[in-house]
């Protein structure tokens, strides 16, 4: 019997699909592939709801246990973990509708919106760090922007994850400061081409090759971003005088206009009197 290429491809795909016999899930479609496994959309038959099912390539339970410990609006909650008949580990989590950060960001997004994304990611990261968990592979492809603008940090790392070169810290042994490096790289990624120098400096400081030259923790980095947003000087950059004056001017534009108006009124009154 002769099988066409398309039929063979289909058969290969069917064989590659995980066997969910004995679980409460029904497979729908593949929605993504990562370094450690494949994510499928599935239906929870018992609760009649759609979930995301991540099937790990290797017998790694660490990742699910790791995330299950974390309860944060920026971290996708785990519903259940289990083992497939072929021995692979799977875990079911909330199915989030949205788009990946690299697809979400286009030229129309404002700097404020880009910084909001970084802030939300940073908050989730700071929370995880406070629980002793590090991400290890923070990159735009691991960030999801939900329908209502909510940000989810996904694919929390396990020891085997090597990280993605452009976002990975140079040190061989990854720790919390390595995540700070990745957050700095993410900031550089989301910034528009002509970004304010203060934001570029924040990104550069976070991405210092020497981990001790980076921000000591994520809240310190977020605080510097908040200072920028409030029109205050940032720690990462000693700004030149003209820039400081310009920042003061834009921060206090109304006050300067009022003082100028007062001076103009006084001058006018003085000269009108002498006419």
């Amino acid at each position, binding site marked *: 019997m002769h099988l066409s290429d398309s039929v063979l491809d289909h058969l290969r795909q069917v064989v590659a699909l995980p066997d969910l016999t004995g679980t409460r899930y029904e497979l729908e479609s593949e929605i993504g592939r990562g370094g450690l496994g494949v994510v499928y959309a599935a239906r929870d038959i018992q609760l009649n709801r759609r979930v995301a099912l991540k099937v790990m390539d290797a017998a790694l339970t660490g990742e699910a246990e790791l995330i299950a410990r974390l309860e944060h609006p920026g971290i996708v909650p785990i519903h259940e973990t289990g083992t497939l008949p072929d021995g692979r580990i799977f875990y079911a989590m909330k199915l989030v509708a949205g788009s990946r950060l690299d697809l979400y960001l286009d030229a129309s997004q404002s700097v404020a919106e880009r910084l909001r994304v970084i802030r939300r990611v940073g908050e989730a990261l700071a929370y995880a760090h406070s629980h002793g968990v590090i991400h290890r592979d923070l990159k735009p492809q691991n960030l999801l922007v939900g329908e209502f603008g909510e940000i989810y940090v996904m694919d929390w790392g396990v020891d085997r994850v090597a990280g993605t070169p452009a976002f990975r810290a140079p040190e061989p042994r990854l720790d919390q400061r390595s995540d700070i490096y990745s957050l700095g790289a993410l900031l550089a990624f989301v910034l528009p081409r002509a970004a304010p120098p203060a934001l570029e400096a924040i990104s550069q400081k976070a991405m210092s090759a020497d981990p001790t030259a980076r921000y000591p923790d994520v809240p310190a980095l977020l605080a510097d971003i908040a200072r920028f947003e409030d029109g205050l000087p940032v720690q990462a950059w000693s700004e030149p005088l003209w820039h400081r004056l310009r920042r003061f001017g834009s921060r206090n534009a*109304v*006050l300067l206009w*009022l*003082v100028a*108006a*007062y001076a103009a*009124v*006084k001058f006018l*009154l*003085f000269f009108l*009197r002498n006419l």
Partner: protein
Amino acid sequence: MNKILVGLLFGLILGALDGATAAFYPETRGLVGGIMVGSSLKGMLVGLLSGWFARKVQSTMWGVLLGSALGLLFAYLVAANDVINGRHPYLEVMTPGFVVGAIVGFLTQRMGTPVAAIKGEV
């Protein structure tokens, strides 16, 4: 520092500075001390009310509008009760009073601790 105190402080300082400009005019040079005191009191009154308003409403625009309206009102009352060279100095007192009121209104909005933060600290 709470917003009423901010209003009082800036009303006092800006009112005194505004009053001190009377020294530029020969007819009021001799009265500059009294004008400064009166102008400071006027500024403090505007600052007090603007500060109280800033505790209730957090809006730079409304703060500036209220401050300028109060500045204009109190400056009118001062000018209406004053006669220099046989006429009321409405223009000379009300125009700067209007702008100084706006500045005080602006500063009470931008500076000082809002009520919510004060309550949160307790």
